[in-house]
């Protein structure tokens, strides 16, 4: 929070959310949502919350690392860094100083299907933040020197998060590369160091002019605001930024996986093995998708979950089992094929087969027996609490994130208030149907990390 932790460093594991306990009296917690689209195509979402005198401004661009240029892996993320390097009216470091010296914090991150930039400031500084965000949407002013500097920073970012760490990139960066077929889903999105080094100023200009247009973005404002005034400010600063025709989106679909896959990766820095298992999840916004969210709660979330109970409590094979849908966010903030992943660390005297045997057994049960009522109800309560936690996350940023994605991907930020209904509608039959198709053994990819200590000199 204190500094700009950019991009993939920001593994915000927002657990997911939702729903109520079936017949319960509790009406869903609703948040106010106002939605507008300016003439240039910019989407604007406003959600007042007067709890504290603060405001979150979140600008999301509909461009993530999934569809970055094929010869420039890691470019979407490198580009995110460039957005802090200078714009029409703000030189290097000035954006950051402007926000911090006005009492705010800021950050940015690059995900599968969007790149976001946000500030959280005292409410009376809303206009300052909007001016600054509009300034960099209007145009960048990047020098060769600044690009070079950020190539150095990003290469150091990859080193500290991946190359100089045991289990570096496991499983969040590794697993999509093993489980997916389509290049858009399976490339190294942190980037090969060679590609990061090869990026040019022309690449930066082209990427900006293609994707960083108002009609490819949403401005979301959450906090102590008057919506009418806020909308006037957005219109004033963003209203005359010209829209740009967007290129056709490439085909990012994944074929149905028909065979179980298993991979082993040697890790010279690790001294204990680790293991991850993934399944492709149902398409977004289908009934099965919501069922999958509850299956995640049943299997993986919390110490009451079935995999924790079996692998940790009963068998003592590991200390914890972690994971979820979308390891770089939550089950709502993406727009394309996605994986549900579980992972754990274990001991050298245990075979990965022993662990996968137990995992498969726990999962197979859900494919053959209808879920009992108490377990399903508990999953729904956990979902609901988890949603509220997301809404409260990071001073309003959590709700801004969801609304921005619903606006950007579904043109409907109000979906944030419908989720409860969607999860409540999930039946034991639907859980069974979803498990049968999506938790098939042939839809599974397993990745084992084997410690291979380098010989000491």
């Amino acid at each position, binding site marked *: 929070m204190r*500094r700009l932790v950019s991009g993939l460093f920001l593994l915000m594991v927002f657990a997911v959310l939702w729903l109520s306990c079936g017949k319960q009296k509790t009406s869903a917690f609703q948040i106010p949502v106002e939605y507008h689209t300016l003439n240039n195509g910019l989407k604007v979402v406003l959600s007042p919350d007067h709890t504290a005198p603060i405001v979150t401004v979140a600008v999301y661009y509909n461009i993530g690392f999934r569809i970055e240029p094929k010869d420039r892996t890691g470019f979407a993320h490198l580009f995110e860094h460039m957005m802090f390097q200078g714009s029409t*009216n703000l030189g290097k470091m*000035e954006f950051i100083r402007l926000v911090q010296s006005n*009492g705010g914090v800021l950050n940015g991150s690059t995900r599968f299907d969007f790149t976001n930039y946000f500030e959280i400031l005292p409410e009376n500084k809303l206009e300052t933040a909007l001016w600054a965000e509009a300034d960099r949407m209007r145009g960048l002013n990047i020098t060769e020197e600044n690009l070079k*500097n950020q190539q*150095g*920073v990003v290469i150091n970012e990859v080193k500290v998060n991946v190359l100089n760490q045991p289990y570096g990139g496991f499983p969040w960066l590794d697993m999509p590369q093993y489980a997916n077929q389509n290049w858009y889903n399976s490339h190294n999105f942190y980037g090969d160091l060679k590609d990061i080094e090869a990026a040019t100023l022309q690449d930066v200009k082209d990427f900006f002019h293609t994707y960083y247009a108002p009609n490819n973005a949403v401005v979301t404002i959450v906090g102590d605001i008057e919506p009418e005034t806020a909308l006037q400010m957005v219109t004033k600063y963003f209203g005359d930024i010209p829209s740009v025709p967007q290129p056709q989106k490439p085909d990012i679909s994944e074929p149905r996986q028909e065979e179980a896959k298993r991979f082993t990766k040697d890790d010279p820095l690790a001294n204990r093995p680790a293991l991850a298992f993934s399944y492709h999840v149902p398409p977004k916004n289908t009934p099965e998708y919501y069922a999958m969210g509850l299956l995640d709660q049943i299997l993986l979330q919390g*110490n009451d979950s079935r995999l924790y109970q079996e692998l940790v409590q009963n068998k003592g094979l590991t200390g914890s089992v972690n994971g979820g849908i979308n390891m770089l966010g939550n089950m709502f903030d993406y727009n394309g094929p996605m994986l549900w992943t579980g992972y754990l660390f274990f001991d050298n005297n245990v075979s990965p087969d022993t662990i996968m045997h137990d995992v498969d057994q726990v999962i197979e049960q859900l494919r053959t027996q209808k879920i009992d009522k108490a377990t399903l109800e508990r999953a729904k309560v956990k979902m609901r609490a988890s949603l*509220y936690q997301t809404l409260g996350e990071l001073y309003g940023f959590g709700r801004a994130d969801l609304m921005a994605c619903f606006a950007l991907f579904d043109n409907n930020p109000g979906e944030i208030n419908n989720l409860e209904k969607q999860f409540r509608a999930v039946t034991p039959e639907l859980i069974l149907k979803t498990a049968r198709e999506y938790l098939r053994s042939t839809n599974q990819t397993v990745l084992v990390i084997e410690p291979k200590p380098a010989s000491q000199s």
Partner: protein
Amino acid sequence: MKNVKVFHIFLSLIFFSSLLFSQKETPPEGSQPKNFVLPAQKTFTLNNGLQVTMVPYGTLPMVTVRCILRAGNLNEPADEVWVADLTDDLLKEGTTSRSAEDIAREAANMGGAVDVSTGSDQSWVGGEVLNEFGPKYIALLADVIQNPSFPETAFERLRKDFLRNLSIAKTRPQSLAMEKFNQVLYGNHPYGHVFPTAEMLQGYTIEQVKSFYDQNIGAQRTHIYVVGKFDEEAMGNAIHDNFDNWKKGPEPLIDIPKPQSKRAVYIIDRPDAPQSTIYMGVPVVDPSSPDYIPLQVTNTLLGGAFSSRITANIREEKGYTYSPRSSISTHYRNAYWAEVADVGTDVTGASLKEIFKEIHGLQNEAPSQKELTGIQNYMAGTFVLRNSAPTGIIGQLSFIDLHGLDTNYLNDYVNNLYQVKPEDVQRIAQTYFVDNEMTIVIVGDRKKITKQVKPFGKIIM
């Protein structure tokens, strides 16, 4: 509660010279600030000494409960490192009337979990649940804290997990650097014992855990914080019903270390490492000192914010590193300052040079009022943020509780922040960031960095 005028100073905010010299647009300043009011709190003490603080906050139908225990690694005997962690983790493994699965399931039925966290001076047990279950959650936490059954099988399982966690921690350069730094500063004091040895862990018995629990956990050392949207009377009653009869237990242990720090470079070899992990710092004053807030301001300006001098230099100018940061780590009546950065192996010496250059720069010349005001505004803003979330509010309150600070510490914080003058920052840098007391720890490729770091102090392998 007293109103705190946090943002008045923002009105006179000045912008950057480069903007003034060019034809560029000036950012809009924004509107009149509102007053920030710290969330009101209600505090009471049970007959056995247990303290309770309740803070109604927010609109989400959730309540956060944390039982903060004034016990942790500080209370461990020298050869029992991590026994505090084992004890706390075992609380979740069963009570005289509930199994581990019962505990997990009951908490999940309330939309939450029972989490534990062990620190050096304080530990906590608690979590966040849907507010309609608040009183039931209090009862569950009370059982977990007061009636642990310490099952032997769970103990053996956790021992294995701890051995694995230890082994993994020892392969991370950041953990190795932090351990060495604390060893150098604190020696045989418990703060110097970051990790146990595998042999120590293998030798522990359940009796040691039980004895740690008996000697360290009790009402007098416990402070329960309740924050969120909840029924005050129902929560207060639940706390009385479930904690009134708990044993008083011991008073807090006071064991203040005398940290040592002399200029030297400790190298931990990590062959072929692409980066060097730098952990360098000195002992400083603790939060009870009048110098503490000026020290915080100095730290933020020097390395504690993205716009700080060290970060602007070694990241944004030189590209040597991704996430450099400086911070002050506090214990009861003790603290140290440290700059931590993972830098490219080939620029290890160059990074040290730039870090020292920024420290010396501050010692030789007071910062401009403009730079200082920007940092003060940032700190005033993040103070409001810290007080705008349940766990942040608990963090603030338990901080002043641990350090025995006056409750006005928080009310006066922003005013005191703005009392700091440019000369104070210079004086603080001169007084505390003393060159020949700087302990420098580097985890990196010894073959490639030894020559680079030689100019920065006696090398100790």
